[in-house]
């Protein structure tokens, strides 16, 4: 494996993917859709998932909603390959929800509500705060763990940069595929963090173990060798996890698909960053005399 020799190519691939994500965020937010598709859990409001029972005309549905609720701009999203629609609007109360369902059923007699949720502004801002807090605390806890674990500052820094890489790739997935950003977003993010740091540690431990087998200026060879030795493990572990998460994605209901897709992308990103990126960054950060 010639990881170090090709490191610039690997960096380029990562930067390209992340740029696509940033572009998607910019395009969507200039189009007025917001950089991400935030769920009512974070914005407040009412969301209804309705199985229309037949093909549904979005414009007609919009009119029904406006007639009943007076809201002119509900977000309506068709779930691909089904008659299900996800509607998001400003908060409405129980009576209005019943009226709305009745009005929809007049036009679409088979329509059936699958999941309905209503989140007040207080609760949504609490959930936002809790989510940010959770991410920050987990991030700090992992930083502390990494710095305890890697006494070498450069190794720690490379591991952290690799983690940021994984977060950015997962964010790209959310932006490009318009996956709803809700509490499961935090779940995906933190799980991927834990998962990816694990792979990086396995590789870095091997690099440390191989220290005595290489001369000081053979760092590139040392890193390549260590990555190769742990490659089977990196691939096999990612594969077994992809099998199970992939099964959830293929067989699961909509809400779980929205969880499994970014998780799969995150696992791939984590495997890629540990194998191709983390060691390369470490190498880049080293002083010249240790290179060649």
């Amino acid at each position, binding site marked *: 494996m010639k990881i170090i020799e090709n490191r610039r190519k690997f960096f380029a691939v990562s930067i390209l993917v992340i740029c696509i994500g940033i572009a998607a965020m910019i395009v969507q937010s200039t189009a007025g859709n917001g950089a991400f598709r935030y769920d009512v859990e974070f914005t407040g409001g009412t969301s209804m998932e309705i199985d229309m029972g037949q093909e549904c005309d979005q414009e007609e549905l919009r009119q029904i909603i406006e007639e009943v609720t007076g809201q002119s701009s509900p977000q309506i999203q068709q779930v691909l390959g089904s008659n299900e629609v996800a509607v998001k609007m400003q908060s409405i109360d129980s009576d209005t929800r019943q009226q709305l369902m009745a009005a929809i059923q007049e036009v679409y007699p088979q329509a059936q509500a699958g999941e309905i*949720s209503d989140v007040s502004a207080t609760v949504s801002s609490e959930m936002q705060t809790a989510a940010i*807090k959770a991410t920050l605390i987990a991030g700090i806890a992992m930083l502390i763990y990494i710095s305890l674990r890697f006494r070498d500052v450069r190794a720690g820094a490379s591991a952290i940069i690799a983690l940021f890489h994984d977060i950015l790739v997962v964010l790209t997935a959310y932006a490009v595929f318009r996956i709803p950003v809700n509490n499961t977003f935090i*779940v995906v993010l933190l799980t991927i963090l*834990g998962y990816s740091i694990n792979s990086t540690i396995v590789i870095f431990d091997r690099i440390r173990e191989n220290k005595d087998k290489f001369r000081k200026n053979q760092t590139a060879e040392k890193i390549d060798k260590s990555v190769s030795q742990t490659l089977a493990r990196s691939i096999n572990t990612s594969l077994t996890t992809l099998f*199970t998460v992939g099964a*959830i994605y293929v067989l699961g209901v909509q809400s*779980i698909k929205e969880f499994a897709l970014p998780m799969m992308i995150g696992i791939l990103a984590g495997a890629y960053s540990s194998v191709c990126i983390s060691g390369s960054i470490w190498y880049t950060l080293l002083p010249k005399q240790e290179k060649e």
Partner: protein
Amino acid sequence: MKSKGRLMLFLMLVLAVGLSFVALRGIGADGKWSAAQIKQGLDLSGGVYIVYEADKENVTQEEMNAAVSLIQGRLDWNGWTEAEVAQDGSNRIRVDIPGVENAEEAIREIGQTAQLAFKDEAGNVLLTGDMVVNATKQVGATSKNGPSEPYVALEFSDEGKQLFAEATKANIGKTIQIVMDDEIISSPMVSTEITDGNAIITGNFTGESAEELASLIRAGSLPFNLNVIHMKNVGARLGADALDSGVMAGMVGIALVLLFMLVVYKLLGLAADIALVVYIGLEMVLLSAFGITLTLPGIAGIILSIGMAVDANVVIFERIKEELVEGKTLRVSVKNGFSRALPAILDGNITTLIAAVVLFVFGSGTVKGFATTLMMGIIISMFTALCITRILVNGFMYSGIYNPKLYGLRTK
């Protein structure tokens, strides 16, 4: 040595089969500890989750208790016996009603302002709940030389005092019904005219039932309304679909992992597979035995942790392979494989555990469900992947299976 090895293998097989049996069928006639008895969250059973908030600042704990009793009463009267009510923070009440058909009706029914009235036997309203100043549980003798027993003491306002005096005078020897919403919560017999505005209700109360009745009566004069600040309703069909597809995904995922390990790691893979069966059985039985509520993200957590559970074995097996390639004997390779892989395995599990603990502490309902199963998964898998697999691999060796090829050595 051989018989010791075979005994080890036999015991592990018994463990795997036994746990699978318990997970599938449970213990005894009522199937205790079986997977079927795992408590299902609302996203799997269908149902509604509601959070009410009192629209008044500085609500006292006593008022909250009264509100909780009121909601509990309404749930019981409507036959939603599996529902759960709990106070959340200082002024919120969380209600879970599994399997409810008409969620909107439930939301209105439960949250409406309490209608408490005192009626005579003909159904005429004598006085209303707002005239009750206080209702408390007391314990003491209620008659001369009588035994000490719990009872409920009522205190009326000035207006109530007057009306109650008239009401008791007119109804001596008859009952006065105390009605909440349309439900008679108590119908005490009037024994004498009460003019001082202090009445007591006696009967066969336990301490608990007296407290309940006092709380319900207090709820008739709650100085606040309950507003819905968060609700989530999952249709029963969607819940059932989610459960079925989750179970299906789990089985397919497990089958793929079992097959993969067997193909890639041969005999070692078999050991990992048996350990994985133990892991899954143990997880199911513990979820069931501890009464942990399983949610859809919870299933995802289990399935994800299955993928991660084999990671420890993958790390160990790769290490054994390397040791064999370096020309060490099988026994030394296996020993080194387990011990040298340990730090990496601990690291991986600790980082994931950090994430899971943070999610558990800061997450809301569904997120907690994921964190719970992930934490359980990590801890159980450490045990199965390290202990069970090790016993099995040693068992294979002691039983006389020494061909290094079966342990991953590839000859060129």
